[in-house]
């Protein structure tokens, strides 16, 4: 069932410096009411999409794409300039945690106040009060004014109230970006619970891993328009591809050779087990990197491939150590080499691949393309991968599934 639909939503802001702030400007404005187009900013131009019951929808896009404006319109904080949206069911929106907290009031008082502001009924807050306090771990300071709280306690209290909000449709902005790792973990698993309990979630974040993990579908906003709307992994891969400008396929320029007089790279691509090109790779499946290159002279050529994570840290390097050509010169010709990385090896996130060919004795690099390829490793929410049921950030350059033995004494 469709629970939320937006129909050609647009939002125009009049730029701040031209906004009449004093009576004098307004009076002057009546006599000089020509407003030229430069004074306007269209935060949203034309946004339409539908969300079904129980769907977890991610909204991504670069800064200024209109994500926050869209959430503000759907939360009814501001009105669209044109277009229409329809929402079926009780909406809870979290564009910030701790909205309306007051420093002079105690933790207990703030729980009630914040709960009411978020749209909870008094009876509902009363029922969940103990749960909220327990979740926040601030029981001892319940009657202390908020102004004496540390920022960590403040955040914990704020999030505890928010986490117990129980709407049919939850709208969440980047609130996960704040707080320590433990706090984010709690937050993510709570959101997973909400998603799994069949409620609808709209989630805006810059953290592509969090979006990929939580959302089944993603809407990509660009300059106030919907650029793409579809399966989370595919849209995120396209988005990241455009952000980094590296794709999962590489081809040499027709008029320029990539390499020296002994060897040059013709093409390279990232492939799945069926040898089809892929942008997104399931963390559980094997992934291959295939390179096609031309060899011209009599040299020992060793193709090698380097894998880097998002931060540019080299995860590992591999070269062809087992082919027939390991230590004898290759005849001229075109060769294709493929390396397979098993499933449950990479960590989730973006992987950048460098493709090269060298001769080791004496050392000579024939070609190296540092940012040749890139693909996205997606972790899913099924329980059969290394992260098991843990939904928080899972650090590490690799993510193998290892055997564990536990014995009771």
């Amino acid at each position, binding site marked *: 069932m469709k629970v939320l639909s937006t129909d050609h939503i647009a939002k125009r802001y009049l730029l701040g410096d031209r906004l009449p702030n004093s009576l004098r400007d307004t009076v002057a404005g009546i006599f000089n009411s020509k407003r030229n187009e430069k004074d306007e900013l269209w935060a949203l131009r034309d946004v339409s999409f539908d969300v079904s019951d129980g769907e977890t929808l991610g909204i991504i896009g670069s800064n200024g794409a209109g994500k926050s404006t869209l959430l503000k319109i759907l939360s009814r904080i501001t009105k669209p300039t044109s277009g229409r949206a329809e929402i079926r069911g009780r909406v809870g929106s979290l564009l910030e945690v701790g909205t*309306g907290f007051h420093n002079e009031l105690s933790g207990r008082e703030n729980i009630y106040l914040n709960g009411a502001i978020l749209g909870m009924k008094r009876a509902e807050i009363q029922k969940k009060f103990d749960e909220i306090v327990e979740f926040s771990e601030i029981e001892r300071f319940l009657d202390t004014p908020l102004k004496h709280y540390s920022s960590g306690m403040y955040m914990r209290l704020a999030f505890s109230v928010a986490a117990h909000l129980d709407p049919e449709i939850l709208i969440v902005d980047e609130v996960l970006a704040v707080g320590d790792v433990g706090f984010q973990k709690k937050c993510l698993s709570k959101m997973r619970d909400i998603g799994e309990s069949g409620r609808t979630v709209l989630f805006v974040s810059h953290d592509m891993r969090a979006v990929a993990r939580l959302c089944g579908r993603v809407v990509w906003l660009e300059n106030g328009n919907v650029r793409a709307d579809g399966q989370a992994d595919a849209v995120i891969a396209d988005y990241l591809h455009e952000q980094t400008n590296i794709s999962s396929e590489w081809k040499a320029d027709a008029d320029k050779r990539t390499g020296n007089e002994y060897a040059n790279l013709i093409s390279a691509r990232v492939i799945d087990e069926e040898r089809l090109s892929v942008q997104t790779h399931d963390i559980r499946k094997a992934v291959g990197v295939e390179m096609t290159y031309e060899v011209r002279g009599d040299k020992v050529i060793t193709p090698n491939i380097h894998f880097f994570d998002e931060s540019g840290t080299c995860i590992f390097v591999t070269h062809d150590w087992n082919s027939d050509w390991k230590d004898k010169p290759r005849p001229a010709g075109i060769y294709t080499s493929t390396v397979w990385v098993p499933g449950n090896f990479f960590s989730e996130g973006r992987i950048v691949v460098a493709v090269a060919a060298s001769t080791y004795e004496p050392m000579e690099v024939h070609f190296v393309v540092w940012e040749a390829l890139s693909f996205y490793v997606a972790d899913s929410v099924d329980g059969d991968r290394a992260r098991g049921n843990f939904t928080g950030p899972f650090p590490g350059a690799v993510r193998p599934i290892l055997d564990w033995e536990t014995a009771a004494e």
Partner: protein
Amino acid sequence: MSQDQITIIEPKRFLSSLDLGDLWRHRELLYFMIWRDVKIRYKQASFGIAWAVLQPVLTTAIFTVIFSSVARFDTVDVPYPLFALSGVMIWLFVHTSVSMASNSFVSNTNLVTKIYFPRLILPLAATVAALSDLLFSVLILGLMMVYFAVAPSSQILLAPVALLMTLVLAASLGTLFSALNVRFRDVKFALPFLLQVWMIASPIFYPSSLLPEKWRLVYAINPMVGILDLFRSAVFGTSIDWQLIGISSISIVVITVLSLAVFRWMEDDFADIV
């Protein structure tokens, strides 16, 4: 639970209804906001409740010293201190609530930009919260009536009507200025001045009978005239000038309708400009 609750989001229209149903659905939030404002009001000031008592008492004392010995207004059988206090308490409530309500959006920016609720709740809560001060004044008035041995008549039953009129007037003006304050920061400077002029133009420390008979009905366009007359007649059992009160009542209705219309027209833009 409430799958049939449908929210429609549409552009601002020139004239649209106030959506009082939405206000009703958020009545618990209104209650919490009043409770918050009252709580903070007495927590932040170091003298807390003492202020609520001292302000009307001291103002009344000053008026009494000046006007009962120097100017000598004819307050029709009511001892001047009682007369002054009855005016001062109503005025102080209007003054405090309108001043507080006018700041309700500007001082709660994060609420307006981060969450939806019927915007009317903020100025309403500020207005109602100021009633707590009036409660103390009522107690003081009661004590002073005992002291001056002025017994109320059955007309005292009309006192709540006068207070209700005051509340409606204060809430309307508070709402109007809260909205204007978001867009025009001049309000911050203009409002104290307007309130001062209004105080002098209202029969607070002088009786409305001071004016010639033929001007009195024009004078009643100032709603404070009717409110104060009704309140005093109700409390002190003096005769009631219904004509005066009628004109002031019409005035209150007009002010309320205009204020709500202006508010409704401006409220959709609050989050974008506050």
